[in-house]
């Protein structure tokens, strides 16, 4: 796997040999797609794997933190604020922080991506939890549910729409962000984009990377939407799921 340095600055020989620009250099080239299908597939698979790992890692950290913030209200401010600070740090800077210690490995890309997704996941999960009606909570307590049982069997299921909004936002933005991973040498489709640019501005390769990236984001978004529908059968009759407010609010307020 060539690093950014070899792929970009010194131009690895195999990159030149395998995808030399077509003479006409148009934005769409079937010949390029045909001749490089396995390279493209490898990039796509790497992209999916990096994105999935990052989102799963972020979810594993974000869910407990959101529950903590929900249970202990005084912690809400600090938890959201620290996730906000992490979100403010530019992604490239996070790459710069971890790469000298972790080396040019996939995990070097996964950790910054996960950090970046934290805020969206925590905030939307919390929104989902807070929206659980007080009467429902009261009823649960009246039926003798303990704190944990109430969380697992009542509050979290009812918060699924909120969790899902966060998950969709985080997934879509992580798919786009994964491209930056070319810097430590694991950028999935980003590698096609950058190699195309450095390889005499080979337009077909750049566009292939871009289109696949956007398509992947939309596909994963729809997949999550479908899974969410399946997981919340009670919302299906109404036109809009309870917690799926416009992602605008989640995204715009830092």
């Amino acid at each position, binding site marked *: 796997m060539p690093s950014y340095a070899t792929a970009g600055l010194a131009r690895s020989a195999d990159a030149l040999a395998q995808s030399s620009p077509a003479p006409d250099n148009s934005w769409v080239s079937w010949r390029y797609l045909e001749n490089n299908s396995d390279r493209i597939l490898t990039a796509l698979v790497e992209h999916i794997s990096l994105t999935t790992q990052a989102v799963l890692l972020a979810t594993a950290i974000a869910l407990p933190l959101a529950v903590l913030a929900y249970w202990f209200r005084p912690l809400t401010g600090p938890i959201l604020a620290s996730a906000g600070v992490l979100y403010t740090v530019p992604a490239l800077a996070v790459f*710069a922080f971890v790469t000298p210690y972790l080396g040019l490995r996939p995990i070097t890309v996964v950790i910054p991506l996960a950090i970046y997704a934290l805020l969206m996941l925590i905030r939307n999960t919390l929104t989902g939890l807070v929206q659980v009606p007080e009467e429902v909570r009261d009823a649960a307590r009246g039926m003798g549910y303990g704190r944990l049982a109430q969380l697992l069997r009542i509050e979290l299921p009812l918060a699924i729409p909120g969790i899902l909004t966060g998950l969709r936002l985080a997934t879509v933005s992580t798919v786009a962000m994964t491209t930056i991973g*070319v810097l430590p040498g694991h950028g999935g489709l980003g590698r096609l984009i950058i190699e195309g640019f450095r390889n005499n501005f080979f337009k077909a390769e750049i566009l292939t990377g871009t289109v696949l*990236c956007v398509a992947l*984001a939309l596909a994963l978004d729809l997949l999550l939407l479908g899974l969410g529908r399946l997981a919340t059968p009670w919302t299906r009759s109404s036109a809009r799921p309870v917690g799926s407010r416009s992602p605008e609010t989640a995204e715009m307020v830092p």
Partner: protein
Amino acid sequence: MSDPLRQAVIWLNDPLNWTNPGGILDRLGEHLLLSAGAVALGCLVAWPVGIWLGHRGRGGHAIVIFSNLTLAIPVLATLTILPLTFVGFGRPAVIVALAIFAVPPLLATAYTGVRQVDPEVRDAAAGMGLSGGQLLRRVELPLAVPYLASGFRTAAVQVVATVTLAVFVNGGGLGQIIGAGFGLGLVTGGGQILAGGFLVAALAMLVEGGLALAERVLTPKPLRRRVRRRVTAASI
């Protein structure tokens, strides 16, 4: 691998790394110039559109769809594709590529800012004989200012962070320092990579803090508490 943190401190303490051509000060200047250009261009496009849509009270869904769509577009794609179109190579292409990502927060806050004006206030203004344009200029816009300001802050911080990616197309900015470090390899360049990361992160924090402070100082006192409460309520 030798200790990258020590290397980074040494690198940052070398005055030549600051003043050389292509040193930290040069890169900082480029970074701020590119950021200012992208934010200005974003405001120029997003504010009139957002304010107009808010005034007419439609297009809210289109704004949400647009901002979700831009979320799916990699910055690397606009950075690499734009120079190959009629825009041509150079700073304008980088600025346009980054401005695209500044538009959604600016657009959404401009729209909400005008939309959130109390309908009774709007009714009263219309009852006093204000025309549509006067209503917009004298009532809706002044009341939307806190929203415009918070959108500006979000967009500016985001752009300052994203400008670092210009390094991928050799477009300048502080990201170049990190890129050059990667070019040297991890063993010799590790310190420089880390130092570049510190600089970029510090700049983002400074811009965020500075704009937050400016926003607070410039907001008239009676409006201050209202907006803050609204922001915390929205962020939960």
